């Protein structure tokens, strides 16, 4: 095991980074803030993947690369592996982490919401803000995965965002309302894919990796 620092260093640095980009640098432009946060993650993922694969032979196919991300890469970063890997055999992979460290300690700031949730017009606004804050944090790990895979020669798109589908949205809001004062929940949706996953378990996080269309879509058997 190499050098270590306390986890609160990383937590506070990430929280401060997200808050700086969202509230100070790009206060009214969440898309720009998100892109910067994802770009920072990309650099980190790219360099980490470089370091962790220096002594290995190249991966034989995309599935091997994804498995590396799920097992060794994730273990180096979070001391655990990805809990569940699914694919549709057409270039989309879903990585599920049931206890994602960076969300496990997040809580939604109670001062950011009005105490009175009975007002219908204010509740969606504050809950949307909470959902937005959560999704901002998730841009960073998405960037890490995209950067790591890009270093392995696999361009892809990675998302873990909260979609605006009406049916799911209710659930998102429900969950966040229940856990407003304790831990945030990560519920990830794919807005364009055929699947819609959601999870109500605490700090469960789904990360969706979609391969670039020009990569050959040979069926990838996973097990």
């Amino acid at each position, binding site marked *: 095991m190499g050098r270590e620092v306390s986890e609160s260093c990383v937590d506070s640095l990430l929280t401060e980074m997200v808050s700086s980009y969202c509230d100070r640098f790009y206060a009214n432009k969440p898309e720009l803030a998100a892109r910067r946060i994802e770009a920072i993650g990309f650099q980190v993922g790219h360099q980490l993947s470089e370091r962790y694969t220096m002594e290995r032979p190249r991966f034989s196919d995309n599935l091997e690369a994804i498995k590396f991300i799920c097992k060794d890469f994730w273990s*180096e970063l979070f001391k655990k592996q990805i809990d569940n890997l699914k694919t549709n055999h057409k270039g989309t992979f879903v990585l599920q982490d049931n206890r994602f460290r960076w969300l496990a300690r997040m809580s939604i700031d109670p001062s950011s919401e009005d105490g009175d949730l009975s007002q219908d017009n204010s509740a969606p606004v504050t809950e949307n803000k909470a959902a937005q804050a959560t999704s901002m944090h998730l841009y960073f790990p998405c960037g890490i995965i995209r950067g790591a895979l890009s270093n392995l020669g696999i361009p892809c798109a990675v998302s873990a965002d909260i979609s605006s589908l009406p049916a799911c949205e209710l659930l998102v809001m429900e969950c966040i309302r229940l856990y407003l004062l304790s831990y945030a929940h990560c519920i990830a949706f794919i807005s364009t894919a055929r699947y819609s996953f959601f999870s109500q378990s605490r700090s469960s996080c789904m990360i969706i990796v979609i391969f670039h269309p020009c990569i050959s879509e040979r069926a990838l058997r996973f097990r």
Partner: protein
Amino acid sequence: MAPVIPRSGDAIFASVERVNAELFTLTYGAIVRQLLTDLEEVEEVNKQLDQMGYNIGIRLVDEFLAKSNVSRCIDFKETAEVIAKVGFKMFLGVTASVSNWDADGTCCSIILEDNPLVDFVELPDTCQGLYYCNVLSGVIRGALEMVSMKTEVTWVRDMLRGDDAFELQVKLLKQVPEEYPYKDDE
């Protein structure tokens, strides 16, 4: 009530959750690089790093006080020692030293020879004037402000600029006594 014994930096570091320092180093490096791209001016980046450090410090001090069991420090000398020996150790896993006290005991240097933030980091020539570790000065300033000490923290030596160690000068400007918000006779 039994006296609460302050814990040593090593003991606390061994008991907290720890992570791979590479993640920390690379994340910080990526943040600095992105700030340089977005803000372009080195002075502005220095300022933002200090501000980020300040925001981190005002929260980190709570964890520090909770985990270290330090009682109120008698004077600024003790404060500086505690920061160097316990604070740096429990978060960054490295110990700093304190020296260069002035006659009043209000100004000292905290010296760091080993710094996880700068592992594998080299500054290119285009970054003249950048204080890469400026987040640390903000953290110290923010943390001390939360315990009623207004300080000014500046860099004296910076290994990324060719010096042999990192040296931060911490100058106590004002000690604001704690005030109760209510008057006694009301």
